[in-house]
């Protein structure tokens, strides 16, 4: 991967061109018609979610499909799914930074933004899903008149700290990378009122070699911490299930397999966002087919690991021969939700295999289909993890199927709208591609071309 010129078109070898391409629209440009339409649509979709959440708060969780046995349903699946998507950004910025991958430069900023938005949205669900959401703060340790503290043995409290730490850590990491670019925006001549705000948040950044050295040092330190952190976050989400004794949940493979699954769905979302951003913001010169190709390879690898994980899960049921596990396996493939099982295998394991072909790795339609397939497949997986186990537990007398309601779908849809809406706003406020890193890359590429 030494060939830096693969990741940047020569038109972007000039620093001014890079700055103009990225900072220009933010400082001088007005939001286009397409942007306004997208904002209105996403706002409307968000509104649906807000109304559905309002209905849930007004009348109670009974508005959802949850029942006495399947006490968890869409809200928890949404939570796990969103937090999974929120994993790829940090992977790209931390792990690829440590391994000095040049292709991270163009995509890490929006991937990190995606992480922060997705984790924030994921963090809403543990509150939304509560029976009495107004008391969510009881999960936090504070000196109260009851003399009570949270239950540190609960995976939900682990979640609370994992999400809180991960979200704030990602925010700091994101902001750290943003500082030099904010300085660029601050210094650019233009009509935007935002320049004062950019200036304040740039904290007086000058770009002296001493500042750069501290900046790079902290970025590496944080990358070293972020990599295990991001793995632990999704391991803990896996422990929500694995630390129980229910059939289909109590599996030691869950934490690693949740981590892989998270990267998987995150990369799928990155691919979709990359496709949108490069055409919408005209950044084809910086987000190259080679980037897509690299992401597609990641999807291929992760998809294959998913297949391995599923296989090991099924095999362990067959191997131990535990009645409840076998029944669970049989139900997965022949029961009411078996359609979702096959959809999950198709989306998560089979579709990514298309990426063995280099041509397909660079084909936009194929990328869209596979990424969407992965996102759906991963959602099916999340819902199956919850519903299979809870629908057919140990006691046949308590077996109950789960049927989501319109409110359930509306809340899920609404969070999608919120994600898009927030992303659209961000795209007008911060540079979605890190300018200083592209400049650095351009310098290397220039040298290579010469």
């Amino acid at each position, binding site marked *: 991967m030494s060939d830096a010129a693969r990741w940047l078109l020569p038109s972007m070898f000039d620093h001014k061109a890079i*700055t103009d391409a990225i900072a220009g629209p933010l400082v001088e440009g007005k939001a286009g018609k397409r942007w306004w339409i997208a904002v209105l649509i996403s706002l409307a979709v968000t509104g649906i979610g807000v109304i559905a959440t309002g209905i849930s708060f007004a009348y109670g969780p009974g508005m959802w499909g949850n029942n006495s046995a399947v006490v968890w349903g869409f809200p928890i699946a949404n939570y796990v799914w969103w937090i999974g998507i929120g994993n790829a950004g940090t992977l790209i910025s931390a792990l690829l930074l440590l391994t000095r991958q040049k292709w991270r430069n163009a995509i890490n900023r929006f991937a990190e933004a995606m992480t922060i938005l997705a984790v924030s949205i994921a963090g809403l669900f543990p509150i939304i899903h509560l029976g009495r959401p107004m008391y969510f703060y009881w999960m936090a340790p504070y000196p109260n008149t009851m003399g009570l503290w949270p239950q540190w043995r609960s995976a939900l409290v682990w979640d609370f700290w994992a999400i809180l730490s991960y979200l*704030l850590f990602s925010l700091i990491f994101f902001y750290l990378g943003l500082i030099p670019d904010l300085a660029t925006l601050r210094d650019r001549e233009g009509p935007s009122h935002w320049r004062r705000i950019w200036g304040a948040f740039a904290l007086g950044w000058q770009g002296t070699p001493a500042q750069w050295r501290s900046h790079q040092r902290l970025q590496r*330190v944080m990358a070293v911490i972020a990599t295990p952190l991001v793995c632990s976050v999704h391991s803990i989400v896996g422990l929500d299930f694995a630390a129980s004794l229910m059939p289909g949940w109590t599996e030691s493979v869950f934490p690693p397999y949740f981590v892989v699954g998270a990267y998987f769905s995150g990369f799928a979302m990155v691919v979709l966002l990359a496709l949108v951003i490069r055409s919408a913001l005209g950044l084809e010169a910086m987000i190259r087919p080679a980037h897509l190709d690299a992401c597609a390879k990641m999807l291929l690898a992760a998809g294959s690991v998913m297949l391995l994980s599923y296989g090991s899960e099924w095999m362990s049921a067959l191997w131990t021969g535990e009645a409840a596990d076998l029944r669970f396996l049989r139900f997965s493939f022949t029961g009411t939700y078996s359609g979702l099982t096959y959809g999950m295998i198709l989306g998560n394991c089979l579709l990514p295999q298309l990426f063995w072909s280099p041509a397909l790795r660079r084909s936009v339609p194929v990328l869209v289909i596979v990424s969407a397939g992965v996102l759906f497949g991963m959602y099916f997986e999340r819902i199956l993890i919850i519903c299979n186990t809870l629908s057919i537990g140990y006691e046949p007398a308590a077996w109950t199927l789960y049927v989501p309601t319109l409110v359930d779908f509306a809340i899920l849809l609404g969070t999608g709208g919120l994600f898009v809406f927030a992303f659209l706003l961000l795209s007008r406020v911060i540079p979605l591609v890190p300018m200083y890193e592209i400049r650095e890359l351009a310098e290397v590429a220039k040298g290579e071309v010469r």
Partner: protein
Amino acid sequence: MTALAIASFADEAAFRAGVAKADEAGRRVVGLWSPYPVEIGAIGEEMAAPIAWIAIAGGLAAAFLFYGFIWWTATQSYPFDSGGRPLHSWQVFLIAPIEFGALAAGVAGMIAFIVRARLTRLHHPAFDIAEVERASSEHFVIALACDADDGGDVLALLADAGAVHSRMVTR
């Protein structure tokens, strides 16, 4: 009377050459600015060195304190029989401190960075120099100290190194 010789460079190589020439000539470098990370010698190493240690120390301290807090709440403040588990279930008590420690390390590192890199100075005198503003987007900038009378030499030296633009500023 002191003055500053300020030169802009279009690329990193010329910038490095300018710095090298200034060094050779024994000129005092007042300021360097680059639009992306450029390491020049050991400049800033002293400033950056403790950041990693501060981050790690902050993280570890927070994690240990948090663990101690958990131990206190679970075994001293209000001990509960929770499913017959031991009061001090250290295995699971480790999880939250690890997560929180990572966050604390990030916060400590960020604070260390802001302090060590002398940030939050929004009205630094350097911002009065027009070239510095452009350094954040395209140009590399060198500012050398000089007297009003040897200004011409310094400018020549910088031009020789490949400066696309240079000028004298008198204070």
